[in-house]
């Protein structure tokens, strides 16, 4: 399947639509938005400080409205990224023992974001882009494409995960370049009744040009052109310590990073909660939200298998495993 011409054409079309008609008006709008976001973040930081001053114990009784109110104010302040983070907090009190600690983590990272935005002029440009994208400033694709040269590789389609938030469905597709070893994340969105982008199949390789969004840890990308697809095969699974080291290095550059691609050669085990274990005996917990993960256990049969997933602060979310025949099995 070779589709580069149509792909390039459709990207070019999108760029045409986005071309700024009136630079002066656009600059004025951008300035207005900065002002609103700045006052929104100041309000958020005051709110966070109030919480910590009065004590988070009160949040337990507060219910969903507690975070919905402040999230709605962030929507008004044109900071949708913050609103999304805040709405997600409503599930924290139901996430099991230790939730107070997780709530403090999230508040602290939001506070860090507010501080970072306030001091964005002091930040190196890639980190500034990371801060702005976490707040919810989205880049025009023209700017993404202008930002860096395309990276051509045989991208292994490792895994995908569909999430739903506020009736918008989001699909995350994780890729890894066979030649460059680079990780990439494609995002696509769909409103109800509309299908999600299905052009990449987990377990295949796509020879494609990707362009990465700027950031301290460039991960998100868009497909500029597709050249060819091939069967692929299992990726190289690494050890647990390798994953932890890569994640730590990434966190040092982007402290808000909370999902990181993992490709491991591991055996699932129950110890007694589900974990994955590598050949060195090192283990990582599976994410409690991922459930029993029985299909992963069944596929492995107590032997090492290649596993791709998302590493998060709460554990590994398993997404794809490769069976004895080398076939990708979405979990």
């Amino acid at each position: 399947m070779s589709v580069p011409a149509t792909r390039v054409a459709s990207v070019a079309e999108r760029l045409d639509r986005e071309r700024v008609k009136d630079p002066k008006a656009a600059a004025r709008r951008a300035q207005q938005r900065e002002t609103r976001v700045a006052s929104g973040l100041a309000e958020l930081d005051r709110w966070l400080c109030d919480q910590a001053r009065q004590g988070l114990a009160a949040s337990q009784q507060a219910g969903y409205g507690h975070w919905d109110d402040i999230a709605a104010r962030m929507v008004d302040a044109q900071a949708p990224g913050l609103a999304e983070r805040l709405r997600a907090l409503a599930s924290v009190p139901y996430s099991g023992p230790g939730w107070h600690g997780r709530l403090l983590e999230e508040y602290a990272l939001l506070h860090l974001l507010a501080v970072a935005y306030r001091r964005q002029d002091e930040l190196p440009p890639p980190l500034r882009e990371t801060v702005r994208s976490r707040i919810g400033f989205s880049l025009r694709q023209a700017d993404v494409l202008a930002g860096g040269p395309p990276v051509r590789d045989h991208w292994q389609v490792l895994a995908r995960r569909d999430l739903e938030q506020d009736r918008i469905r989001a699909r995350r597709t994780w890729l890894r370049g066979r030649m460059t070893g680079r990780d990439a994340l494609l995002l696509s969105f769909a409103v109800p009744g509309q299908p999600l982008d299905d052009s990449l199949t987990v377990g295949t390789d796509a020879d494609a040009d990707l362009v990465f969004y700027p950031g301290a840890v460039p991960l998100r990308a868009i497909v500029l052109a597709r050249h060819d697809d091939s069967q692929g095969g299992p990726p190289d699974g690494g050890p647990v310590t390798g994953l932890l080291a890569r994640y730590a290095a990434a966190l040092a550059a982007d402290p808000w990073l909370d999902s990181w691609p993992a490709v491991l050669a591991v055996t699932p085990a129950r110890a007694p909660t589900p974990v994955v274990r590598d050949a060195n005996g090192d283990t990582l917990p599976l994410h409690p939200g991922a459930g029993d993960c029985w299909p992963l256990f069944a596929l492995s049969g107590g032997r090492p298998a290649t596993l791709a997933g998302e590493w998060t602060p709460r554990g590994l979310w398993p997404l794809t495993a490769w069976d004895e025949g080398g076939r990708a099995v979405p979990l």
Partner: protein
Amino acid sequence: VSIWQDLVTASLIGTERTGVPAVADPGLPIRPEGVPGDPVTLLLDRAALLTVARRGGRPAGHAEPPAAAEPDPVPAASPAAGRRLARMLGGEHPDLLAEWLTAAVARDRRVPAHLLPALLDRARRVSPSDPELRRLSAEAGGSRARWLAGLNPAWTFVTAYAEAGQDAWRLGSTSQRRGYLTALRARDPRAARELILQSWEAAAGPERVMFLSVMANAGLSLADEPLPEAALDDRDAEVRGWAAHLLARLPGSALGQRMARRARDCIRVESGVRGTRLVVIPPARGDAAMRRDGVTSGQGGGLQEMDARAHLLDEVLARTPLRTWTDRFGRTAEQILAVPSGAWSPVLFTGWSRAAMAQRDQEWMTALINWALAGGPAGTRLDAETLRQLARRVDPARCALPTTAGRGAEIPPPIRDAISVLRFRYDMLKELEL
């Protein structure tokens, strides 16, 4: 207690009421001049620092390797077969699961490992009174299914089938006894029959039903006849019903011959000026001998006399050896169905279909379903439930599937459903050959 816990505790109480614990060097010192005056900002700053430090510095855990499953010499079913099984477990034609599993076992293929949890969960939910799906899942799941059963107590029924030895027969639960007997029947029908004969006298009604159903499911032959023939006079109505059902499946049985005598004169071929046709005269009424052979009268159910007689004909036909008709008329099943039978054709369709399914007669099943799919006799409506069952039992490779393209709306729903089931089964069995 860690510094992080101290910070969490302080945040719970609130900085209004407590101090902010100092963060001892987690790798990055906080410059004193950067420390703001407000303790709450201090708390959040320190929490942010520690959050990232803890996430980045998280150590790996350690565990012993888990016990591995025995290697399974049986190859997994093809990827296409696996994808179809996944769809079935997701709710598409779930009633065909048993056929998928039976076909896989017959072709020496096992269930793809990652689908076992969904299959075992489904088999577990099936009521214990219909243990066939459990047995088939255990068998088609192979050593991987047994290994999984060791990890999840909900799936222990798998090992009940796999490890059913003599002890299971003597001491086991009903389902373990059944598992043992089923396995023995598949391996050595005669030994299973001997075991049933030895245990029959001491067994109560429900267990006798289990014996007969195990007998019926595999290895049925005329050598099995004496036991069910005697059980036609059992005290328990359910045992009597199963015995009659079993004998009706044995075309050479005495019951079959009694039925043939009753049925013979009900249908005859007449050739006249209007061409050849089937003339049908249903039995007038049921008698005690017919009831003993499992025929239900249908009377007292508020049926009109003619409906009651049609019901009786259906019951008799369903138990009559199909060779009765091919021998008597000197015609094949297909040729018999081609002879017009007027208003009686729906009753003949149902009765013969039941007989064909019980006797597992593929020639008749094929002829009947092709007849139904081609529209059957004009102006009559064939029983949808019978058609539904036929479509699930006939060999789909032998059927003449009419094309449905472009005339979807004109095809009656039962026929459309039957065609879709036959297509589904055709593809399913093909994929299991891969």
